[in-house]
């Protein structure tokens, strides 16, 4: 469906209101054409009329009805199986990390989400009647997921990834609703977003949707089997992989022609997971399943940054769902672009300080005999070293790795206080040349300074 079709569909939806508005406008014009006004007055009326018409049309296109508040349902209104499935789906959809602020109550919102247009704060999705979604009916919840509109009819910002959640089936939405409505209600007022004009105007989101939003639910692809379709449904829908792994255009919308092509968001690089994926050892469905389950794989390394939150959630979902995602994503990846494992010829990569720092500091874990998770990954296997962006390597060397809260996983100490910017720059040059066989990243030292600034803020 093209953009114009969507405009038409939206138009049809609001046709009745548009027709009424048009008749009014016509009457207005007729009435005023009969008036005797000087030329400048007529121009003024024309301009004002056009502006009024445009604003009116936008408001009408953007208008959504308020759905009636309900009495907050009781826990026994939901069956246990739905709640259980909802918990798994919430883990798959990673609801918790975004809807929980640092050290805050689970799902009570308040986490700042940085966007190029300003900061958006996640909302309270506990069933608190005043500040959460306690008065949302199932229909209101489904509309938020499917159309990105809240109970009161306001368009939601796509920081809430309804461009993916729209694919979620009615049954899964119902299970998610059952899970969320049976959580402990927490009173926590959503913080005001810090957005610049015109992004702070809600109906601008309606215009955004006309061009960039395709409503679901997911349509099965008959060319593939049930498992692949389940994986595609989850990865593109609830799990919203593309929200990080797909580059966005300047309007903040994912670029459909670059699905899963890899991009940097908020100080971390989400690698390509399409045919451009590069890893020394080819990813397959089995390796992906292990990685998504535990957060590390001995031939690929450890999930970093936001991906560590994702894998912590995926550890709790049924193997069938995780395997389906792994099968689907593996099908998108072609053989890797890099040559098979092997270090660059020695001599080519001797980089003085960098090599000495590696040998003295990193090698005991990364070049030892202990495999992951007790030792470090062999660095020629690490996408953080072989990939296109330096930022993940910078982040992990400075700040180390910790398992997510409550999860088991590999640990790496951070070296922020031990390494100067120059020392880290020399180390990265060496790693890049020696283990990736590539030229050092340009301006890597700038990325180091940037990462230190971010850690301080």
């Amino acid at each position, binding site marked *: 469906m093209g953009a114009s079709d969507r405009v038409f569909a939206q138009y049809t939806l609001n046709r009745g209101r548009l027709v009424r508005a048009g008749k009014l406008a016509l009457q207005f014009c007729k009435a005023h054409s009969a008036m005797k006004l000087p030329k400048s007055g007529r121009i003024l009326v024309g301009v004002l009329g056009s502006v009024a018409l445009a604003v009116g049309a936008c408001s009408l296109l953007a208008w959504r009805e308020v759905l009636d508040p309900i009495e907050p349902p009781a826990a026994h209104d939901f069956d246990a199986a739905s709640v259980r499935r909802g918990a798994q789906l919430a883990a798959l959809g990673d609801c918790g990390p975004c809807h929980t602020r*640092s*050290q805050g109550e689970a799902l009570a919102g308040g986490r700042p989400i940085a966007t190029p247009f300003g900061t958006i704060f996640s909302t309270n999705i506990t069933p608190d009647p005043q500040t959460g979604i306690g008065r949302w009916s199932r229909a209101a919840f489904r509309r938020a997921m499917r159309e990105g509109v809240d109970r009161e009819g306001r368009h939601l910002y796509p920081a809430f990834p309804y461009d993916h959640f729209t694919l979620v089936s009615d049954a899964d939405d119902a299970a998610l609703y059952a899970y969320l409505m049976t959580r402990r209600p927490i009173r926590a007022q959503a913080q005001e977003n810090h957005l610049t004009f015109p992004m702070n105007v809600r109906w601008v989101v309606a215009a955004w949707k006309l061009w960039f939003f395709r409503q679901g639910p997911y349509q099965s692809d008959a060319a593939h089997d049930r498992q692949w379709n389940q994986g595609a449904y989850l990865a593109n829908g609830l799990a919203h992989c593309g929200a990080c792994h797909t580059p966005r255009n300047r309007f903040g919308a994912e670029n459909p022609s670059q699905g899963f092509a890899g991009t940097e968001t908020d100080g971390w690089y989400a690698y390509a997971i399409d045919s451009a994926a590069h890893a020394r050892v080819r990813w397959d469905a089995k390796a992906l399943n292990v990685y998504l389950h535990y957060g590390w794989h001995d031939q690929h390394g450890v999930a970093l940054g936001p991906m560590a939150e994702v894998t912590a959630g995926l550890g709790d979902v049924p193997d069938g769902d995780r395997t389906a995602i792994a099968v689907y994503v593996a099908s998108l990846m072609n053989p890797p672009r890099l040559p098979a494992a092997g270090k660059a010829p020695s001599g080519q990569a001797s980089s003085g300080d960098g090599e*000495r*720092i590696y*040998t*003295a*500091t990193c090698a*005991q*874990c990364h070049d030892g005999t202990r495999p992951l998770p007790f030792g470090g990954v062999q660095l020629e296997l690490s996408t953080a070293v072989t990939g296109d962006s330096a930022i993940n390597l910078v982040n992990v060397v400075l700040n*180390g790795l*910790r398992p997510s809260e409550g999860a088991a996983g590999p*640990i*790496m*100490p951070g*070296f*922020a*206080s*031990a*390494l*100067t910017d120059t*020392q880290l720059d020399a180390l990265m040059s060496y790693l890049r040349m020696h283990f990736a066989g590539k030229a050092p990243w340009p301006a890597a030292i700038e990325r180091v300074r940037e990462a230190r600034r971010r850690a301080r803020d």
Partner: protein
Amino acid sequence: MIDLTVNGQTHGIDADPDTPLLYVLREDLQLNAAKFGCGLGQCGACTVLVDGAPALACVIPIMLLAGKQITTLEGIGTLEDPAPIQQAFMEEQAAQCGFCIAGMMMRAQALLQANPRASDAEIRAHLQPNLCRCGTHLRILRAVHRAAALILSGHPAATHAAGASGQAGGAAGPDRHGSDGPSPAAPEDRLRPDDRDLSRHPQQRERPER
């Protein structure tokens, strides 16, 4: 020969540049507070400060440290004149076997130097890399809160120890006793109510003077 500045004093160290800092501290400089735990930077027993930030001495070769300020537990206070963090750990009897405690104190010191008003959640998150096998975590947390209160109430540790004549404990680093804070919050106020009822060592009853 590498020049290392430890607790404000510069030492010429004649060791292989690959040598981990911890070995030099313990064997060459006889500074034995920092402990060898795992040797892999995973337990935190060897935590010291490098330029005021926590660092794991067992995995940092001395070649990286020329020109940087290294602070060990010996550098922030002495038995006679303990720093607030040391005073607080004693008052809360936060050690059981004690092996992790030097590292715990140094990591907490880094946090309180930067922010003596750190919240309980911030303290917990900050101490997360340091492990304790005995399970004295609640006492450790109480001790860090107590140290924060001591710092905010303005160096009570210096006047607390009756025997101390007030002289600074020798090779105190530049970060001695953390920062001064204007608000004299009582140590009790920093403790969460549910922590107060836990049994305490008798020494606990002696409150620091303010």
